[in-house]
């Protein structure tokens, strides 16, 4: 990167780390920067939580009722196989650009979380479940004591994967949909005006936000895992 940057006009094609860092430092104090971050983060993370919020109860339904699992198998397979770009373009027809990243993030997070949680539920210890059945243990106590400790490691690995995916796909959706005031719009403008320091600065912002969110979310999951199944 540094070599390309010192080549005559190279900085136009590939900004040096120093110029990217300088651009990022210049952006940080401005209110517009934080408004842009807030706009994208709220939608992308909203999509993450929406995807998880839909995937977990549907996985529970699929674990309890085989017909529900059969019903959900084709859309899950489609969501896994169809390229994100196809969904983005289709969603542009249905939705306005401002909601696009929320929808796409949810769509990216849903399949891994659904499949992992379903696997975790199916792996629950049937002997403990029988014991709870004989002693007529209420559902919420079974969920907290047997299902949750079993499912959390599966959910954790899916959430870690989904947290990265939602930022990638969400930012890509914003670049295509170009909603005003989004990180995707800033990336698109960087491309139009060949502002590679801006491109790298905003890319770094996305990477930092994704890593930070993943760390915080997994920390929360680990805290819950320590408490799950305890009285």
């Amino acid at each position, binding site marked *: 990167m540094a070599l390309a940057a010192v080549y005559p006009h190279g900085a136009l094609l590939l900004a040096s780390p120093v110029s990217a860092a300088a651009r990022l430092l210049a952006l940080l104090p401005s209110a517009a920067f934080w408004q842009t971050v807030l706009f994208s983060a709220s939608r992308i993370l909203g999509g993450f939580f929406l995807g998880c919020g839909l995937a977990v109860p549907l996985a529970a339904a699929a674990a309890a009722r085989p017909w529900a699992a059969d019903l959900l198998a084709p859309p899950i397979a489609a969501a896994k196989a169809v390229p994100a770009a196809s969904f983005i373009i289709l969603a542009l027809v249905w939705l306005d650009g401002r909601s696009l990243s929320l929808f796409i993030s949810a769509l990216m997070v849903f399949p891994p979380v659904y499949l992992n949680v379903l696997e975790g539920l199916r792996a629950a210890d049937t002997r403990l479940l029988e014991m709870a059945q*004989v002693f*007529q243990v209420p559902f919420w106590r079974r969920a907290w004591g047997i299902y949750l400790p079993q499912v959390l490691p599966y959910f954790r690995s899916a959430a870690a994967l989904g947290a990265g995916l939602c930022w990638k796909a969400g930012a890509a959706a914003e670049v295509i949909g170009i909603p005003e005031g989004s990180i995707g719009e800033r990336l698109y403008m960087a491309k139009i005006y060949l502002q590679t320091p801006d491109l790298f600065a905003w890319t770094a912002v996305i990477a930092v936000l994704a890593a930070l969110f993943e760390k915080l979310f997994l920390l929360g999951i680990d805290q819950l895992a320590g408490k799950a199944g305890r009285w």
Partner: protein
Amino acid sequence: MKLHVEKLCKSYGSRAVLKDVTFTAGNGVLEIAAPSGGGKTTLLHILLGLERADSGWITGAEDCRWSAVFQEDRLLERLDAAGNLRFVLGGLPAAAGKMLDRLGLDLGDPKPVQDYSGGMKRRLALARALLAPSDILALDEPFTGLDPEALARCLSLIQEAAETKPVLLAAHGFGGGFPVFQIPTLETA
């Protein structure tokens, strides 16, 4: 109360496990006897509603609350003794401390059950079954891994429970002096 089992049959594929099992159990201990693999656990699982019989009738157990010691301990291994009792009972009854004390266990011991010896787990599983509110008690090999002193303590508690409810005790070659129901031995082809 009286539990009556009439002509209960159960097969796994072509292998018959129970055939025309008939017995009645009132308050007190009834020892269910059979050789290893003779259908004791299957019979208890059917009575507990964990398996379905192919045919036969069970009367007197409608709307009854069952409590059980399973062939395996079926404890929540990450939890301590108090946590395991809370999971099943929803809280800790006043009798819990004394019950565990009589079984040589400590309710305040914070050690997770996974660190218990086999005998300790067995005693905790029995304490859980005895403390849970129930009308009938099913005990599947509850004395596995117990030394003579622990066995005597467990027996004493089981006899106390049996004063007010039927206790079905499946114990291979136990011979504790209780009335015995022998599961009919099936001829193998």
